[in-house]
């Protein structure tokens, strides 16, 4: 049993909000607008609603097995072999999600800022911080996430306010984008954008019971939905859809075009500060979940011996990708579907299995026996 410590509702909420909202800094807005056009901002809300529905299953499962995390619940519901397999899949998925996030971050960073710095130096630097965070444990990551969450929200609100003079309402017309049906379909499939809410299931033991998970999970999804939708609306109001689709990092471009007279301009260094902090925290959360899932799958009580090997795997994954096109067109697109299956469908299947097999946890199980 890993000693993860205890975290509060707001810390858990910001763990999820930072992990989810971080994607707006990179290629996501352009990819979304390419898929649905001008309706991207409300497609994010459709995706959010879908994620909330799926999270209900996760919450009901965690409520049925109090004081247990998803990895332990899988063993109870699916048996040891299948439970181990799914837990291992979770660990592997977190490694991949963390690797893809890091590679996307580093590629965008190289495009806009550190064009001469080798990829391995950037990846190594970020991974060193992530490893240090993993060594310090969940409590530290959660507290930093809460702080980073406030910084991120304040930064994004400031960015939108400063970009407001450049908003053009005409840019969001035709309001239906590439069709309402397509928007709905993309909203359902892109609900994976919110799949990081599953982090609460992995660290459920550190939260104080199902009511806290419910509060943290639903409030995090609502807040993340507002952030993603708001940012998408903001960039759509500034860049028309045909231009937005072309940009590597629309939010960074937005920061670059802010001007108030001749004195107050070139705000991108401030934005960069928020961007790097948030991404480091976000990838630390995902990395910790990979380590935690792995240790829980193998019943290891100490995470420290696993941190360096998993970091090496993530580093290898990051530097192995051929180019930014592979990352954006293949890996990120693949991550659109697989998290839905793994992070939404699997807990729902576990819940159904638990109901059918009448499996319960905690006092309910004792009561039944």
């Amino acid at each position: 049993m890993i000693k993860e410590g205890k975290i509060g509702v707001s810390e858990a909420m910001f763990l999820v909000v930072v992990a989810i909202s971080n994607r707006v800094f990179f290629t996501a807005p352009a990819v979304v607008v390419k898929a649905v056009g001008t309706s991207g901002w409300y497609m994010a809300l459709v995706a959010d609603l879908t994620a909330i529905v799926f999270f209900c299953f996760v919450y009901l499962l965690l409520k049925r097995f109090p004081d247990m995390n998803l990895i332990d619940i899988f063993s109870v519901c699916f048996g040891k072999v299948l439970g181990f397999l799914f837990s291992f899949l979770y660990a592997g998925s977190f490694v991949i999600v963390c690797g893809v996030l890091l590679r996307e971050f580093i590629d965008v960073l190289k495009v806009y800022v550190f064009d001469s710095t080798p990829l391995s130096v950037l990846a190594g630097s970020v991974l060193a911080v992530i490893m240090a965070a993993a060594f310090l444990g969940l409590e530290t990551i959660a507290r930093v996430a809460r702080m980073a969450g406030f910084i991120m929200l304040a930064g994004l609100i400031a960015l939108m306010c400063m970009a407001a003079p450049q908003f053009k309402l005409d840019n969001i017309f035709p309001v239906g984008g590439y069709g309402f049906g397509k928007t709905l379909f993309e909203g359902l499939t892109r609900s994976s954008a919110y799949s990081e809410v599953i982090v609460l299931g992995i660290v459920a033991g550190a939260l104080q019971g199902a009511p806290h998970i419910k509060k943290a999970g639903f409030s995090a999804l609502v807040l993340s939905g507002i952030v993603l939708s708001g940012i998408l609306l903001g960039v759509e109001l500034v860049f028309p859809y045909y231009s937005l689709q072309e940009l590597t990092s629309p939010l960074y471009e937005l920061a670059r075009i802010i001007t108030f007279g001749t004195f107050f301009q070139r705000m991108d260094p401030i934005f960069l500060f928020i961007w790097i902090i948030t991404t480091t925290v976000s990838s630390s959360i995902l990395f910790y979940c990979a380590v935690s899932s792995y240790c829980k799958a193998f019943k290891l009580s100490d995470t420290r011996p696993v941190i360096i090997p998993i970091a090496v795997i993530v580093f290898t994954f990051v530097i192995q990708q051929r180019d930014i096109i592979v990352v954006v067109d293949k890996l990120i697109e693949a991550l659109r579907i697989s998290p839905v299956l793994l992070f939404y469908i699997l807990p729902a299947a576990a819940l159904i299995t638990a109901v059918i097999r009448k499996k319960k946890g905690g006092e309910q199980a004792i009561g039944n026996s």
Partner: protein
Amino acid sequence: MGTADQKRRVQSRACAGALYLLTKAIPVLLACCLACASLCACYDAKEIDNWAYVYAIGVDKGVADAFRFTVQIPTAKGSQSGSNDHTASGSQNTSVGTQKENFVVITVDCPTLYAGVNMVNTSVSRTLNYMHAKIVVISEELAKEGVSTVINSIRRAREIRRTMHMVVAKGEASKFIKEFSPMLEASIPKVQESMMDQEKGTGLFDEITLGCFINDLKSTKSQPSCALAALNHYTGEKTDALALKQVRESGDYYAGEAPISGGNAFEFLGTALFNGDKMVGELGADETRVMLMVKNDFQTGAITIQDPTYEDLFVTAMVMVHRSPEIKASIVDGKPVIRVRLYLEADLVSLQSDVNYETESLKPILEEAFRSYLTEKLDHTISKCQALDCDAFGFGTKAARNFPTIQSWEDYNWNTHFKEAQVTTDIEFTLRRMGTVMRTNPVKTVEEQDE
């Protein structure tokens, strides 16, 4: 016994020491070493004096290669007295440099901007950097052939900012860049910023950023336009009395024609109109102003018209936008129907005649004169743009509201339907203030006083 205890104590002290070294001292030492490494600056750090910051980029059709890029770089020597112009020829006559006062202009023929950067870097001790470039000037000749290749070749680089100003220059861009130097300012970037800010006070040219130009280039809702500039060779200055009889209103001038002598050799006047990536026409001073009024980009400008009472006298008003324009676009039987309503107000700043327009009975005559002048200009400008297939007003952005989806909008193909648009215009014009004079009394001659 005592010796064994002593031995154990020594051993335990040694273990504690080793443990201390492993857990505290070595990590702290390693951390210090890593921190020292970070003090050497960033991996790819370059000092400010390693860079040559380009302030202006000019693009012409090339002679030795596809394009001729011209860059204006400050010398970082400070302002020098006296003339120290000199020209240096590069290899194969593809690179030419001219130093004038405190900046140097380098011209290079190359296929892309970055190929040119590398070529220039072979003869300049500093590395060219476009991070602070404020203006990109494209020659009219190149603009008429198409600018998409140039724009595509420069926009991808991280150093090129979308906030740069986009300008089309009549004649050669390289010559324009050479003359684009400060007259009243010591700083080149300051003069460039101030020059572009003049649009806010005059409305005589369309100040467009590279980002906006790129947006319009890809737009399904409008066509691109940008500021038009030219070197003024003072040919517009009239010196003979005969020329004075050919009165031309200030709003009728096009870039390079303003009757000015002295001052800077360059001027920004009018708008370059594009159909796709090709320049197809230009707008003059007042045409640009009415276009900016419709786009809600007009702030203020002095507009001069003939006095409604005396045709040989003139009236000037400082015109401002009272509120945002109302533009309604609908599609009737497949054709666009656009209704434009502008709300303008003005302060009277110059009245040559002694007609008492300040009175309630005569003020409407002057307001009507301004209103009809501007309406005529607006109608003429819209017709001109329709004839050129160029929706520089962005009416398409309003028309798009009538379509539920992007597919239906793109299938309609606004840019081909713009010429069929039936546009009705209406201007509400109010003279708010009469300047420092509230009443114009007639000049009293001896004869009049005798009567």
